[in-house]
Structure formats: C-alpha cells, structure tokens
C-alpha cells in the first residue's frame, strides 16, 4: 500500500500540502484562521485559473507564454470599455472575448505556420503587453463600482473567485474526462503525426486549447481588475512563469501528453500558501524566492524519480 502510494504523484502533492500547512501555521498564529484562509482562496483561485489554461496547452505539447500579458490586456480593455460607457456586463464579456481571440491567434499561428509555440507565444507576450501599454498609456483606469462584486464579493460565505474557478475546473474536468476532447489533446501531445493519421482534427483541437488558455487568462484579468478596482497594463508580469510552475509541479511533462489537472490545482494551493504564509510570517521576499525555488526543484526531481521507477517496474 505505502509503496503504491509513494508512486502516486497526487498523493505526494497532498503530503507536501499538509507539510506546508503545518509549517506555516507554526510560523504565524494568523495563518490557520478562517478569515485568512478564505481570503487566501481568492489568490489560490486566481493562480489556479491561469495554471489550468497552461496545463491544457502543455497537454498538447505546446506552451503559452502570453498568459500574463493577456491578463493585462483584458484588464486594460475592461477599464477602457467601461470608460467609454459600455455597460459593465458587456464590457466583461468583450474583455473575455478578446482573451479567446488572442488565444485563437496563438493557436492558428502555431498550427498553420508550424512555428514552435515557445517562439509564437513569446512574440504575442510582447505584442499583447505592448497593446495594453499603448491603449492605456500606462496609467491606471478606474472601473465602475458595480463590478467590484466580481473581485471583492462573496457568494454565501465563499469568495466569488473560488466559486468561479471551481465551476471552471468542474466544466473542464467533465470535458476532458467524459468526452473525447481529453483523449485528442493527449494523443496530439504524445505524437502529433500519429494523431493526424488517427483522424484527429489536430488544428481544431490544438486551437481550442490555446483559446481556452487565452480565455482563462482574460478571466483572471477581469477577476483581478475587479479585486483591485482599477485596470493597469503592468498586471500579470511573470504570471506565465507561475502558470508553468503550477502545471509542472502538478505533474505535467513539458514534452506533452501527460498532465494532471487535480495535481495542478493542489500545486497552486501549495505555491500560494507558501508565498502568503512566508509573507505573513514577515520573511524577506528574497528569502521567499529562494525557499520556493528549492521546494520546486526538490518536488520536480522527486516527481521524475517516481516516474522513472514506474517505467522500470512496468
């Protein structure tokens, strides 16, 4: 039983989470209070959302570096749409559509021009950020108060972000595990040529993954903007790194074909909890970076070790 469990990446993540929670609650008295943790779920939900999109793209063997910039672009668009008098709800919908469109651009360029996703999304990362800075002039844009609910409100006792992200996760999980979408993405990730010859619509499915990634980034942009009450072009800097970290920590292989959505979610909780916990315990930010880096290397190395043992024994 124990031998079996240690081979299970998901179980290991749960153990790491338990250890992190234990250590953090020792570092600060405030850590394990309901108020603190409920507030923390806002950050967890936001971070796991961007990790979810990245996980989908990594499953196809691609990568999406433009998510942080897309988040900023959707934030700025939301601000500007509201400023020119578009009703709040429509402004949110349009901002999300821009995310989907940006994702579609990524997907089609990657598939049709047969360019590496790393380069394409590196380019759109600059492109989206540039547009965001250009149309906003770099200054903050206030959003109408009726939007505050999306970022600062609660549904029952739960923060809005938690409810939204949970719903998104459930919908994606159903599509991945109950329809063929998951199998298609996985086959593309394992071996694109084989997928083509198996009659899978590779471009169609890959573009869908990028569209979802862009959409989730835009959704994060909207939620985040509503939480901080203003839109700005420098939001989401380096969030693509957070997203990749979460996907890989959660058990994804950057070669494609292997990811874990549940793992990514737990990974998001772990990373956010470490960061928040260390901040609350007044540990210097520089030290935090070192600690998070070390934990990640250990975790990924351990994942790899487990994976290699599995193959040998099989």
């Amino acid at each position, binding site marked *: 039983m124990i031998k079996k469990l240690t081979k299970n990446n998901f179980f290991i993540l749960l153990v790491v989470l338990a250890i992190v929670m234990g250590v953090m609650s020792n570092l600060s008295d405030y850590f*394990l209070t309901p108020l*603190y943790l409920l507030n923390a779920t806002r950050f967890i939900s936001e971070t796991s959302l961007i990790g979810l999109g990245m996980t989908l793209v990594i499953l196809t063997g691609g990568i999406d570096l433009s998510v942080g910039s897309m988040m900023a672009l959707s934030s700025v668009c939301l601000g500007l749409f509201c400023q020119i008098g578009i009703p709040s709800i429509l402004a949110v919908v349009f901002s999300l559509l821009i995310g989907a469109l940006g994702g579609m651009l990524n997907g089609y360029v990657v598939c049709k021009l047969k360019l590496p996703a790393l380069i394409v999304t590196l380019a759109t990362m600059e492109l989206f950020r540039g547009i965001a800075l250009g149309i906003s002039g770099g200054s903050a844009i206030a959003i109408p108060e009726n939007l505050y609910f999306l970022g600062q409100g609660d549904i029952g006792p739960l923060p809005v972000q938690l409810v939204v992200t949970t719903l998104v996760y*459930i919908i994606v999980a159903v599509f991945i595990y109950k329809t063929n979408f998951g199998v298609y993405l996985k086959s593309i990730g394992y071996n694109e040529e084989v997928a083509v010859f198996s009659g899978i619509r590779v471009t169609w499915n890959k573009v869908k993954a990028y569209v979802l990634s862009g959409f989730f980034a835009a959704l994060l942009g909207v939620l985040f903007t509503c939480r901080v009450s203003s839109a*700005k072009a420098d939001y989401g*800097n380096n969030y693509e790194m957070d997203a990749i970290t979460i996907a890989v920590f959660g058990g994804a292989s950057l070669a494609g074909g292997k990811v874990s*959505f549940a793992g990514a979610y*737990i990974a998001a909780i772990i990373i956010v909890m470490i960061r928040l916990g260390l901040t609350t315990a007044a540990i210097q*930010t520089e030290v935090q970076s070192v600690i998070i880096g070390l934990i990640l290397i250990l975790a990924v190395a351990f994942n790899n070790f487990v994976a290699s043992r599995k193959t040998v024994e099989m």
Partner: protein
Amino acid sequence: MKKGLKKVIGAGLALSMVFSMAACGQKSGDSSDSASGSEDKTKIVVMPKVVGIDYYNAVKQGVDEAAKELGDKVEVTWQGPTEATVDKQIEMLETIIPTQPDVICIAANDPDAIKPTLEKAEKAGIKVVSWDADANTRDIFVNLVDYTTFGNAIIDSMADQIGEEGDIAIITTTFTAVNQVLWIDAIKARIEEKYPNINIVDTREAGEDTQKANTLASDLMKSYSDLKGIIALGAPNLPGAVDAVVAAGKTGDVVVCGNSTPNTMKSYLKDGSIRDVQLWSAPDHGYLTVYTAYTLATSGIEAGKAFEAGKLGEFTPEKDDLSMNISLPLVEFTKDNVDDFDF
C-alpha cells in the same frame, strides 16, 4: 481517464480539508495570541516599491536605525515585492492586513490601484502612512524634499558660484515629469525674484541617460560660448554634464549644479569638478517614516502641530487635499560630508 475525474474531486476534498484545519486551528491561534502579550508593542510594516536595489537598501538603514532607537516599543518589519509592480504590493498587503499591524507605511507603485486595499486596512483599524510615492488613501504622507525648497537650493548654489550673473542652461529628464516641471518652475521663480542678471538660454531633455546628458552639455557649451553654468537635473544626468565640462577643459569656467546620489558623485566632488550636489538623505527618509508611524499610532498626529522625530528634530505636518504631509529636509553633499552617505 475516469481516475482523473476522481482526482479532481479529491482536489476539492483537499481544499475542504484545508478549511477544517482552519476551524481547528483558530482556537489554538486565539489562545497563543493572548498569551504572547505583544499588545504594548507598536507593530509597523514598511513597504518600499521594490526590495533589493541600492536606493531602498539605503532607506532601510534608516528604518533599522529608528527601530533600534525605539527598541522594545516597536516591532518594525521591512517587506516589499521583488518587482516594482502594484499587483505584487496588493497581494502582500492582503496577507499582511489579517496580522493586524498598527501602521502600514507604503511607497505605492500606483496611487489609485493600491487605494481599495489601503481602505480595507483602514477599515481594519490600521493606520496608513504613504512615503516616497503617494497613495490616494492615507493618514499622512512623508514626502521627499519640498519642490520649491529643492529648486531654490540648486539655483542658489549656481548663483553663488557664477556671481549672480550670466547665461545658464538646463538639462532635464523629460518636460512632462512632475518633479522636473516643479523644480524648473521654482528655479525660474527664484531667478525672477532674486537674480535678475541670470538668463536661462536653453532647456533640453536628456531622459535619464548619462551619455545623452554628456552630448547635450558639450553641444550647449559650443552653441553658447558665454555659457557660465549648466543645471543638470536627474541623478544619471549630472555626472554626464560634469564629464563634458571636464573634457572641454572648462572646469571652473562653466559651473555645473544639480541633483544626484552621493555614491555616483563622490569622485567628482573630491576632485573639485563640482562643488555641491543637492538631494535628500535616503536613510533619513526611512528613519522619519518609522518615527512618523510610531507617533501616529501612539499619540496621534495633527496638521499644524509639531511632533518630534528622533535625531531629525521637529516636523510640522501641513494640511493637503487628502490629509496632511511632511517633507524631508534637503541635504547638500560636498567633498567634506559625502563619505558619510552610502547610496
């Protein structure tokens, strides 16, 4: 694939586990809180725009000094993001607010975006001090040197060195930067009022670029053969202007004044290619911020009523649109005192 869906449900369960732990944890948290008895200590959090750069490290020296002087009366923590963005500051503040510090001192990366978070802090009974860069919600702003004082000091030094008459030129960073505009306004007003024989013949933009300032200064000396002085504003621009004058062999004939940091200007001050450099003391800014926060939390601060800030003496807050503010004193670096500063 079916297994995967189960895992997603498992992840949900893990989250609820986190919450049940929270429920148990609260009791133990409460008891240790009352036992520790840290009630009489004033808890102050000081947040710079970014950590790990020379300038804010220098500010931190002053923060530490004030914390040491106040000793047992305060618990000061220095926390800031590793990138100078407002979203990182917001995330940090959101986690700091539940720990109920008495005062949060913030150098905001964006005055508007930080506002709702600071309002949340004030609602939780936390006092807010903005310093270095203002925020649109605060109890008091600890400003850098007052713009007029600063502009006056620079033109006074220039007038003194060129004998209160002659042509001078200004090199600025950009024509739109708020501090530059107000400094130049102050310089012009002072000339009109006190030095009728000084003429500003040209004003040029160099950005924050030592090389560009250098080229501009050389060009200015060629264009205006009677040029008596150059005012170079912006920390990277001053050394560029001084280099140009030295290279042209005009040290003493063309006087250079302006603002920059002591470490940048140390060698120029010592070899006499510039007499004095205006700025403020970065450590004093940190020191004053901590004393202001401490006074605010303990005895309160009112506009127009002076309060004591340790070795820096008395400060009288002035009322402004939002609440009130105080300004740092000007510091003039010369070859005699420049070694006392390290930033």
